[in-house]
């Protein structure tokens, strides 16, 4: 199966591991990631205001490109995922935004939110299947207690992202179980890491990230995993703990024997 792949800016630079293993593992699991040609940066965070049109265009371009190929659009960075899925939702439901965007782009065929947007982990669950991953694991991460860190971007707003139960998600835990490790459930897994505020005032992300890692460790975590480069940065840099924080694709690659 071939899907359109949107890596995003960070995966090309600071988060190469997230990208590299995403590609390797997908290939091993029988999914071809076809990078969207000439994709543009999604802007990092979803433009919430109803009158923001230009800032939504890069996402719409990627979405329309996937539509043209009739492919599902897969992202792995949580931020890109949040932006693109929400813009797609706007294109499906907000007539005004849809109309303005389409007028602006003036494509042959207007884009109306037809593309199916999946996060890499959703792709693993829905297109590959965790059972099949389990079969393909050569290095089970047995005995490892791994805490999944969702953050805010994958889950909220719950109705739009439709990713998992936003208050008590289980998809990453199921994934960790499929890799042979033991998932650690801790309440801060859907709390925010402090995000981009790190640029201006690292004190805030520090408090947030410490809370997250402390909660994970309280519940016995040995490793924390995330899909977001900024979360990873904040947890590592500001989390005040030596606990390793890794990308989900790294875990997957390790278990599949690709690392």
């Amino acid at each position, binding site marked *: 199966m071939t899907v359109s792949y949107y890596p995003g800016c960070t995966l090309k630079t600071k988060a190469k591991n997230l990208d590299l293993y995403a590609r390797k593992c997908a290939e091993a699991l029988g999914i071809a990631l076809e990078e969207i040609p000439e994709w543009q940066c999604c802007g990092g*965070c979803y433009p919430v205001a109803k009158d923001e049109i230009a800032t939504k265009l890069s996402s719409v371009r990627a979405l329309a490109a996937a539509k043209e190929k009739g492919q599902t659009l897969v992202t792995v960075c949580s931020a890109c995922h949040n932006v693109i899925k929400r813009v797609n939702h706007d294109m499906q439901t907000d007539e005004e935004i849809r109309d303005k965007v389409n007028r602006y782009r003036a494509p042959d065929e207007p884009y109306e939110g037809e593309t199916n947007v999946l996060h890499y982990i959703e792709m693993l669950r829905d297109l590959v299947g965790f059972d099949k991953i389990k079969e393909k694991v050569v290095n089970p991460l047995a005995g490892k207690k791994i805490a999944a860190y969702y953050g805010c971007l994958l889950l909220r707003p719950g109705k739009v992202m439709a990713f998992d139960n936003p208050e008590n998600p289980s998809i990453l835990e199921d994934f960790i179980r499929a890799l042979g490790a033991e998932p650690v459930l801790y309440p801060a897994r859907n709390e925010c890491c*402090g995000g981009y505020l790190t640029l201006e005032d690292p004190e805030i992300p520090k408090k947030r990230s410490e809370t997250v890692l402390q909660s994970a460790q309280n519940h016995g975590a040995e490793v924390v995993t995330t899909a977001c480069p*900024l979360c990873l940065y904040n947890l590592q840099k500001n989390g005040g703990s030596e606990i390793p924080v890794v990308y989900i694709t790294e875990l997957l690659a390790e278990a599949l024997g690709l690392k």
Partner: protein
Amino acid sequence: MEQNNFKETVLRISGVNPKKCMRCGKCSGACPNYDEMEFHPHQFVSMVENGEIEKLMTSPSVYKCLTCFACVERCPRQVEPAKLIEAVRLCVIRQAGQNHLKPDQIPEMLDEDLPQQAIVSAFRKFTK
């Protein structure tokens, strides 16, 4: 942007109807960055409704919202306070010369591990 039109602008670009709020405070109960904020999510709702936009615009609180959407997710009346905060912030930075983040400030903020994502996000949030 005319001063007395701020409320209308905030309501328009946020798409939020603050009248739906029943003053339960769950947003502020949910907010992870509550302690850093001068005005809290529930106050944004009531102050916008009362037209006290300038007070909010001059408060550093507008730059403290993490846009994590916990308040939106848990609001029992679908008021969506985060969208109001965003709209108030936009009222500030869309004014001439009011960008909160300037390019020449960036280099000193960087460290080698900082992902691009943080910079583009901050730029989108803090500049016109």
